[in-house]
């Protein structure tokens, strides 16, 4: 069974994000990390590949840089990685991203593609669905639990009121929520092995496609700020200040 996990390298979320002057696009340092959201997809992919005697390939689009984030995912146990890295992809929107990923995945061949629900830096939240449409397969989205065999996949799909049980045959695209599985931490051996695993970089010419128009950001302005109010140290009677405010707001 050929399992593919889509993973994205992003600027470390614990550092302040900066936008490029002029384009409004996110500035990406050479060292990027694996999007935390994608660790769930990688773990899910590893478990499904193992249970069904298959392989897990990582597919990513974006500047390779030091490839630190991709190595993180390889260190968890994925077999190989394919990165589509092309200067014309800067500022790529969700559709362009999905087209590129679909072309790379199509070239690899797949039975099941796993993605996160939204990326931390882009959070378009539509790449998985677009990918499924372009590949002509079902999109089983927002999975909170997954059972996959070699020809069928069954998920609990998050809904507003609870969850639905959704099934389809393979091939399919699956998007998983955080918490669907507990991602493993790479072992020392995993980290060493990851350095030797195949990491292929492709350009758009290799895939025979062209980048679409980039997302146009026409302005970035400070939002109206909310003023901080009163701050008091609890001396054992702070709850009374809350009561007073609730009365004032006519909540009680």
């Amino acid at each position, binding site marked *: 069974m050929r399992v593919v996990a889509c993973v994205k390298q992003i600027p470390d979320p614990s550092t302040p994000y900066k936008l490029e002057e002029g384009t409004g696009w996110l500035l990406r340092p050479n060292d990027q990390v694996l999007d935390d959201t994608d660790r769930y997809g990688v773990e899910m992919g590893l478990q499904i590949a193992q249970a069904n005697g298959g392989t897990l390939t990582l597919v990513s689009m974006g500047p390779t840089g030091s490839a630190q984030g991709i190595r993180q995912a390889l260190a968890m146990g994925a077999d190989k990685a394919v990165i589509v890295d092309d200067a014309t992809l800067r500022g790529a929107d969700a559709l362009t991203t999905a087209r590129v990923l679909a072309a790379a995945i199509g070239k690899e061949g797949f039975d099941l593609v796993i993605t996160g629900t939204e990326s931390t830096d882009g959070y378009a939240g539509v790449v998985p*669905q677009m990918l499924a449409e372009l590949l002509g397969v079902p999109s089983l989205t927002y999975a909170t639990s997954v059972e996959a065999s070699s020809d069928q996949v069954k998920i609990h799909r998050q809904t507003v009121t609870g969850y639905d*049980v959704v099934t389809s045959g393979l091939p399919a695209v699956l998007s998983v929520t955080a918490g669907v599985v507990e991602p493993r931490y790479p072992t020392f051996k995993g980290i060493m092995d990851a350095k030797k695993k195949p990491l292929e970089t492709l350009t758009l010419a290799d895939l025979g496609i062209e980048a679409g128009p980039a997302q146009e950001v026409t302005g970035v302005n400070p939002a109206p700020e909310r003023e*901080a109010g009163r*701050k008091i140290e609890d001396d*054992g009677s702070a709850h009374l200040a809350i009561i007073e*405010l609730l009365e004032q707001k006519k909540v009680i």
Partner: protein
Amino acid sequence: MSVWVFVESSEGGPASAGLEIMSRARELGEVTAIYLGSASDEVAATLGDHGAARVLVADPGDRLAAAPVAAALAARAESEQPQAILFAQTYDSRDVAGRLAARLGVGVLSNANAVRLTDSGAETDHEVFGGTEIATAAIEQRPAIVIVRPKSYTAEPAGGSPAAVETLDLPDAGAAEAKVVESHAEEREGPQLGDAKVVVAAGRGIGSAEAYEMIERLAKPLNAATGATRAIVDSGWVPYSKQVGQTGKTVKPDVYIAVGISGAMQHLVGMKDSGTIIAINKDPDAPIFSVADLGIVGDAGQVVPKLIEALESR
């Protein structure tokens, strides 16, 4: 100008996230609602009252909506050429929007907090960096597909007559077909997060899953809904349906009480537009205090029980 609004159903009627967007859409042009569910006179009346002249009803039955509904909408959009198709940032809507855009070969602007139409497409505002900055993005295409965050607009009836009902025939999605074989609803009691006037939310600072009972007790006398940060949802303390923030719900209650919540930007975007914000946190430098009208620097384990006692004895 023709503007389509995708509206999901909830408990038999049009869901509020869709109705909110209708309030905006009717300022932009003539509105067609795309209703995901089954048609009834009440549905046509509610949609008409919110500004829809026409409703196209898409009922996928036991099929997952995404593929068949996107296919049918793509065909309709190609023949009718609406200027824009607006969706709410909710599960089925996002699924349909993504597949529809890929099918039509057009982009999507998602996470919008405001939408405007331009001569050749649309322009949207997006809160970035936890809502400290507003980015404006533009697309030039027809239809402009936009996904709007819930609570960006207020749902208000406009007093229109019932929408004219038309059925949208859904094609066989072939290999892309997925089936919904069961539906499960969680126990829902008390006010719901999306529409409660008061929300009491907790973060990791409450210390344990068991301590969430204290939050539920505090909510009772306030007739409040209970919320949570992603940190405690991911830890399995409470279900995802309680998550407030970027990847959870956006709430705008009159009063929001944050207990043991640090105030990460992904949490703030979901609640900072609340009327009055009260925060309890033992760290005087916690970012949540920068948006709080009343900040209590203290131990939740001390302050909350006293607050409950004071409320319960009233």
